[in-house]
């Protein structure tokens, strides 16, 4: 068992990459991810981690260098946030389509304009379709655990896909939390060495990234989709193994309070922990409410979600991103879509809040739940509602 320490979550993530013995870190600094990159550079400078840190000149090059490193057979790590995630957007599609295992911690940050360095999930929601495995965490421990799992999942020969671990910018990155840091030997036993099956190697030449005209593009995308969907089984297997070894258990959809509650609040990310307080308070007053937390974002856990809402009549989804001129809450729109053909369908209410670092308090969550119930019962002429707007 590792020792429990108080550590800033950014530094803990860097320590996780160190424990995983990454070979290449290729990253560009952007608030609020900077401490991750800085700490990794310090670890390398002090000889605590043997890795090549490439101080690239932009996020586009950061992810591009990750492509090269991963393709050459190196264990590859990076981190970014907000605008940085957007700047590397086209490269993300390439990483997944070319089946390159890369682990990236994303410090979720609001997107410009106006420029805002604080946390929300608009950056994540813009990269849903990029073909990466995506996992949300709510606290420092989960961040460390899932970065470690990320390497094992990404490099598994049944997967060979890049993995994003999403954590809230500032709310997590800049907060000191208690974390059980695993021992090096435990990590070495848990994460096998990286053996990319078809690396760039003069001994066995391959041609990567060729030109794919109409007669083949569809088939490549089919293969990609099948692969990403099948990766879910490996994620679950990894989490199960992690649970055995480290005693902390993760699943695609987690719940708090009652599983049978008629009213469920679904949250993603660190706000979930604040929401849990609200759930406790309301249940203390006899309210039939519960919470769902979405952990596995891609591949989307359809079965687990449908199972989790089977008793609910109302599911209120708090999104921290907004899809303009459309469904409003991106997570809500995906949940609605997942439930549309179900025989039993709860009413789904989309509430968008907590944008650009706007905090939501415990009583704020109580208000959200109450407002969500009201909308579910009385209907609304809007697709979604924004919470906490000064009118």
């Amino acid at each position, binding site marked *: 068992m590792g020792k429990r320490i108080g550590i800033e979550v950014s530094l803990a993530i860097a320590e996780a990459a160190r424990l995983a013995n990454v070979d290449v870190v290729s990253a560009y600094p952007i608030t609020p991810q900077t401490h991750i990159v800085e700490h990794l550079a310090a670890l390398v400078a002090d000889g605590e981690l043997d890795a090549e840190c490439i101080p690239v000149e932009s996020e586009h090059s950061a992810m591009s260098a990750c492509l090269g490193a991963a393709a050459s057979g190196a264990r590859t790590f990076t981190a970014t946030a907000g605008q940085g995630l957007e700047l590397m957007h086209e490269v993300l599609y390439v990483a997944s389509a070319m089946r390159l295992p890369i682990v990236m911690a994303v410090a979720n940050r609001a997107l410009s304009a106006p420029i805002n360095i604080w946390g929300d999930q608009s950056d994540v929601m813009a990269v849903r379709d990029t073909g990466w495995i995506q996992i949300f965490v709510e606290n420092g421990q989960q961040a460390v655990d899932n970065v470690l799992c990320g390497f094992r999942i990404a490099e598994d020969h049944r997967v060979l896909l890049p993995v994003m671990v999403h954590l809230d910018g500032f709310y997590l990155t800049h907060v000191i939390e208690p974390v059980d840091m695993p021992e090096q030997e435990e990590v070495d036993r848990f994460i096998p060495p990286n053996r990319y099956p078809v690396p760039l190697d003069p001994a066995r030449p391959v*041609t990567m990234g060729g030109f794919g005209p109409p*007669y083949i593009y569809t*088939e490549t995308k089919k293969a990609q989709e099948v692969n990403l969907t099948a990766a879910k089984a490996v994620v679950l297997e990894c989490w199960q193994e992690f649970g055995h070894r480290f005693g902390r258990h993760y699943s695609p959809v987690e719940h708090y309070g009652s599983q049978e509650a008629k009213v469920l609040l679904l949250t993603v990310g660190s706000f979930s922990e604040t929401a849990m307080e609200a759930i406790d308070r309301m249940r203390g007053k006899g309210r039939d409410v519960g919470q769902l937390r979405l952990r596995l974002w891609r591949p989307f856990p359809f079965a687990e979600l449908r199972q989790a809402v089977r008793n609910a009549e109302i599911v209120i989804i708090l999104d921290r991103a907004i899809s303009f001129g459309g469904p409003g809450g991106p997570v809500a729109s995906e949940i609605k879509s997942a439930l549309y053909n179900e025989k039993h369908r709860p009413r789904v209410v989309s509430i968008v809040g907590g944008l650009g670092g706007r905090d939501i308090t415990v009583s704020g969550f109580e208000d959200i739940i109450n407002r969500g119930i009201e909308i579910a019962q009385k209907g609304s002429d809007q697709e979604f509602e924004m919470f906490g707007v000064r009118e």
Partner: protein
Amino acid sequence: MARTENVPWRELKIGTIMEPGTATEYETGDWKAQRPVFDKNKCNKCGLCYIFCPEGCIRQSADGYFEANLFYCKGCGICAVECPKDAIAMVEEEE
């Protein structure tokens, strides 16, 4: 013979990687409107035609002279222009 382009998705390799050198199965020779004819009487075996061919399809035979592999030759005529001995003539392709 050419490879099949219409591969079912299950047969695609990881990340759609390709085997090296498979372009050698692709016939570019049917592009040409003219083909090079090599005159051994004039050739001095300098090999510049071999050097300057963008396809790399000119090869040296056992007797040391050079000839184009018409399976690939696109008939560009660079070899004919560059030959210092005017030993290569471009002749119209009939078919």
